[in-house]
């Protein structure tokens, strides 16, 4: 019996592309544009977002709303969400030869959970069933610029988004600043460990997208992923 997740990476016909970066780095815009491009070019492509499993979402929402989560349950419930999308969509589609695009992948958990105080090795082993992406784009931005993009106009920050559960500060904006700074540190430390493809997210949107597409064309044999048999 083979459980989901133990398929060898080299047996996967598909390609996995992930984007990571701070809130405000523009990664969601970039992966959206990437998705549009691949779809319009008629490639087999699938897109999935962090924290979006229908089955698990209810519980995550409740936990966050009522502040029931500890660093450990926060970590486990997000991993449950990830596992559900992974077992039901990401892995089967990779086996079927799709290009799978992930808006945030395990590295989001690695950085957030570490900042919340979870043991780094424990978190990494928790997610060890997930295959490494073929390409992970890291949209890198100076902290002040990322903060500025989010904090302009002083929006309502969500409790966990601002890292308020860490007790860094009673002021959500100050908490957000410190929290994001620590997450950036975690991300930056992972660049060489996981071979992130760093994109300078301070550039205009379309030049970033151009670089992303170029890198993908260099590293993935795209024509092999075109739909066949149908016009």
């Amino acid at each position, binding site marked *: *019996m*083979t*459980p*989901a*997740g*133990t398929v060898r990476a080299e047996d996967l016909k598909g390609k996995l592309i992930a984007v990571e970066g701070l809130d405000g780095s523009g990664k969601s815009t970039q992966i959206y544009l990437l998705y549009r491009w691949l779809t319009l070019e008629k490639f087999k492509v699938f897109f999935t977002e962090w924290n979006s*499993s*229908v*089955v*698990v979402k*209810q*519980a995550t929402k*409740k*936990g966050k709303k009522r502040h*029931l*989560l*500890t*660093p*450990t*349950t926060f970590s*486990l*419930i997000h*991993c*449950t969400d990830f*596992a*559900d999308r*992974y*077992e*039901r969509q990401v892995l089967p589609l990779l086996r079927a030869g799709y290009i799978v695009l992930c808006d945030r992948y395990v590295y989001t958990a690695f950085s957030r959970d570490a900042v*919340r*105080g*979870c*043991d780094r*090795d*424990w978190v990494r*082993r*928790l997610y*060890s*069933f997930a295959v490494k992406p073929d390409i992970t784009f890291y949209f890198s931005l100076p902290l002040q610029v990322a903060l500025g993009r989010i904090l302009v106009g002083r929006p309502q920050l969500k409790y966990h988004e601002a890292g308020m559960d860490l007790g860094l500060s009673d002021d959500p904006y100050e908490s957000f600043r410190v929290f994001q700074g620590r997450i950036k540190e975690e991300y930056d430390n992972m660049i060489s460990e996981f071979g992130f493809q760093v994109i300078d997210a301070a550039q205009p949107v379309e030049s970033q997208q151009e670089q992303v597409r170029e890198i993908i064309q260099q590293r993935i044999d795209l024509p092999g992923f075109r739909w066949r048999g149908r016009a």
Partner: protein
Amino acid sequence: MSSKQFYGTGLPGVDASQLGGALVVIEGADGSGRSTQIALLKDWLERRGYAIENVGLRRSNLVSKELEKAKTGTILGARTLSLFYATDFADQLENKILPALRAGFIVLADRYIYTLMARDIVRGLERDWVKSVYGIALVPDLVFYLRVRPQLLVERNFQKNLTLDYWESGMDIGLSHDLFESFFEYQKRMQKEFLQMQEVYGFKMINGNRAIRSVARDLQMHIEEFLADYPL
């Protein structure tokens, strides 16, 4: 007092050696007499003036309802279900077990990580991975495994529910289309896992094929011994 520790990395910010109380776990299949024995133990201990907290699987504030729904409706993958249960466990560990131990309670756990680990391993998840996930768990002071012949389990399950439970029969694994056959095969595999774990984790095997009172007496004897060695 017994000195406590975690199986692995433990929980951020928690020093296990600072915990008091006692964690007593009863493991065993459905129909092994677990709940009956726990109810008896609770009476027995409370009569002696000990404060008791009960925990069990799928009883967390955080995800118990969602888990119940997931089990009846959409079929989740083995790993997702495993992690869902781990979340449920962690929530009870942090919000029920640890506070109770800090307050000097005896925590009676109606199953613990061993059932969860055995289920996962029987479903094909990697032993090392499962062990690592439950590195957050506290090592109990006592673990009892109520071992009951599968034939007797079947009788008791029919007596109680008039049917065999889908999950306790491992129907999700596809061992057999026949519920009855699947139940036996699944319970056999679970027992095998438990026997293996006994060596690693030092369970006290209790012959659960006997009358309720004989089993209860055994459990009380072990707990009495423990409390004599490690007064709370």
